[in-house]
């Protein structure tokens, strides 16, 4: 075919370089996060029954409807396409206790997107992790509902019949207020009371490793966050493994603190951020009024991100070297 008749100048793209594009998309990243959360979703369903799925569903529905409403109001054509509302709804649901009234999850999901994200300008512009904003709102509004936990349905409550077989406290609360220490093996598998997605350490570790393996998250934040908490627990004469697996540390360190939008993008900044989260989490767990501090630690450190980035700007290539130095 001749060159001339086969070049349609009206369809030739003339943009500036580069002319190649890596295949990874925002949508693909969100999809990977959802896949990484599936083990935790499966564990929640196994331990707390189909009700877990219903709670997750209401959170996602609330997030979707808020996102669609905002997109519609802003005149954007394809809401939900990037999958970020799905991730936010799912993460929020995993931080909630089982058996919530349906409307609570829905309100939380809608708040997470509407107030946590949209009023800042939408995807990429929010200061705080939207799922945690949703949870903070629910904890403040419905403190009793949000702190009522129960044993997993397959129970075989490891502590025996002398304890109430239905309602229980989280392992961190038991340890803090009743000095009852949950065996590590139960924390590992997740046969304990707690929020839907935080109880099974193995499920969260599998998901976290998947994200690391796929290059979705960087090791720096989870390693420095978990490492700091474990080190402080060790120094404080407590069991580091208990502190790692009990409560929301694993889901927080792998899935919440690593949220791109609300964590530092510099390498040193990620370490500082993780250490800060760890210090605050351990301080709240040990000295605060709540048994668990992951939620507020991450939200607090979210606010420090611009400052952290300012102080951890990378050294530009060729600066700090002298000319003709050989």
């Amino acid at each position, binding site marked *: 075919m001749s060159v001339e008749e086969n070049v349609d100048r009206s369809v030739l793209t003339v943009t500036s*370089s580069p002319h190649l594009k890596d295949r990874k998309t925002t949508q693909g990243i969100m999809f990977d996060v959802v896949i990484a959360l599936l083990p935790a979703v499966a564990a929640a369903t196994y331990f707390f029954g189909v009700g877990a799925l219903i709670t997750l569903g209401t959170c996602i529905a609330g997030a979707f409807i808020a996102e669609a409403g905002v997109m519609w109001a802003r005149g954007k054509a394809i809401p939900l396409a990037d999958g970020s509302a799905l991730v936010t709804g799912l993460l929020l649901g995993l931080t909630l206790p089982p058996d919530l009234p349906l409307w609570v999850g829905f309100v939380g999901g809608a708040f997470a997107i509407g107030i946590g994200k949209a009023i800042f300008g939408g995807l990429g512009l929010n200061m705080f992790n939207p799922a945690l904003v949703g949870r903070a709102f629910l904890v403040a509004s419905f403190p009793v509902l949000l702190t009522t936990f129960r044993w997993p349905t397959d129970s075989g409550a490891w502590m025996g019949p002398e304890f109430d077989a239905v309602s229980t406290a989280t392992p961190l609360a038991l340890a803090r207020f009743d000095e009852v220490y949950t065996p590590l093996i139960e924390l590992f598998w997740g046969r304990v009371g707690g929020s839907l997605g935080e109880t099974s350490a193995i499920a969260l570790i599998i998901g976290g490793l998947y994200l690391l393996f796929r290059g979705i998250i960087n090791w720096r934040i989870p390693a420095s966050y978990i490492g700091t908490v474990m080190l402080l627990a060790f120094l404080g004469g407590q069991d580091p493994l208990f502190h790692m697996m009990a409560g929301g540390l694993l889901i927080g360190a792998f899935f919440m603190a690593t949220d791109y939008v609300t964590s530092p993008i510099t390498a040193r900044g990620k370490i500082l951020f993780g250490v800060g989260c760890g210090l605050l989490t351990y301080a709240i767990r040990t000295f605060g009024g709540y048994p668990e501090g992951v939620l507020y630690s991450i939200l607090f450190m979210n606010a420090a991100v611009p400052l952290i980035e300012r102080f951890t700007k990378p050294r530009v290539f060729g600066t700090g070297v002298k000319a003709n130095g050989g």
Partner: protein
Amino acid sequence: MVAKTFRGGVHPPEYKELTESSAIEALPPPEKVIVPLIQHIGAPCQPAVADETVLKKGDSVCLGEKIGDTDAFVSAPVHASVSGEVMEIGEARLVDGRKVPAVVIESDGEDRPCESIQPAASLENLTPDEIKEIIREAGIVGMGGAAFPCHVKYSPPEGIELDTIIINGCECEPFLTCDDRLMREDPGEIVFGLQAILKATGAERGVIAVENNKPDAIEAMRAAVDGTSLEVVIVETKYPEGAEKQLIKAVTDREVPSGGLPFQIGVVVNNVATAASIARAVKTGMPLYERIVTVSGDVVARPANLLVRIGTPIRELFEYCGGFTEPPARIIAGGPMMGQAVGDLDIPVVKGMSGLLAVSSEISAYHEEEPCIRCGRCVDVCPAFLMPLYAARYPDDEALEYDPLDCIECGSCAYICPANQRLLARIRLAKAEAQARADAAG
């Protein structure tokens, strides 16, 4: 042996299999060449012949005759790439869209070389200044893309010693194989060119750097340097390994100072094709009037490596390669990472054009921009250690605080961005603004 490298960078698909086994073939000289009077960084040439009379329409020129020159130091003369008659002193469009003065020559089909073109003395009997003069007169500029005049690189300011010459055979751009083929087919010329540069600059260390995805080229270069003090250094296959500052870092572990040039740390980098052109100029007296161009892409019927006269319209390269199997979505002069998309087939081949690509939208689609999710991938890959997402906030003044002037425009940030942000396009604007302000401030 562990391949050396720099920090940052990306791994785009290579697409080199399309042409890496295509031996260099000479494109028959075209009937008409359009030779731009500026093909380099620096001052434009004036149409002129050797005795400084003005070149004009109707003049007869021989192959290799100088047809444009200037007294400016940072410049390089241009030469007739065919013998024939000057049709006009007109205009040519360059790949970046500029229209510049150009000499249009109609070939007489005879390829009659100028009688004045004679081999110089042997390398041993030439002084450094004589070698630099031969290189300048031959119009040799960096052929890897930037087209910086070579004799300028070899003449650092008083008091600065050059100690290392790196010949760049990385060819880290996808699709391109012209340097690979040159290393495999004519390694001796590259080595001779490097020896000439070493003599011209007084540098001691001569290095040929090749990415480890070109085993045949590595073997050929190793055989060619056998018995000399020259080294073949293997570098990792990663983009932009062949970027000047990154390659210097990989080979010598020195960093070119911010805002500075390689000579400040005693290094000169030249492309393998540049070295081969220097060898030819020294050995035969022939100036730079042709170069190897990789013609490739998924819609090119018969991708090839062509030896092409400077000034040949790019249309003729595609025609020689059998045209297109389907309408291209993009035509690119150079590689797909740093090359320029063009919309005009009358653009002539110039000294710095290493590739000519025609690709479908499967390879080079147009993507709508989405919101930045601050994933930080641009920061991770930036080989200049910038924070591209912030440097790209232009026209917000904040962008200027994020060192846009240190951007080497490799495009790794825009390549990796999952949100398809036009990072490099906006950083270029920030760069221009920062430069303008720096100039205004004196």
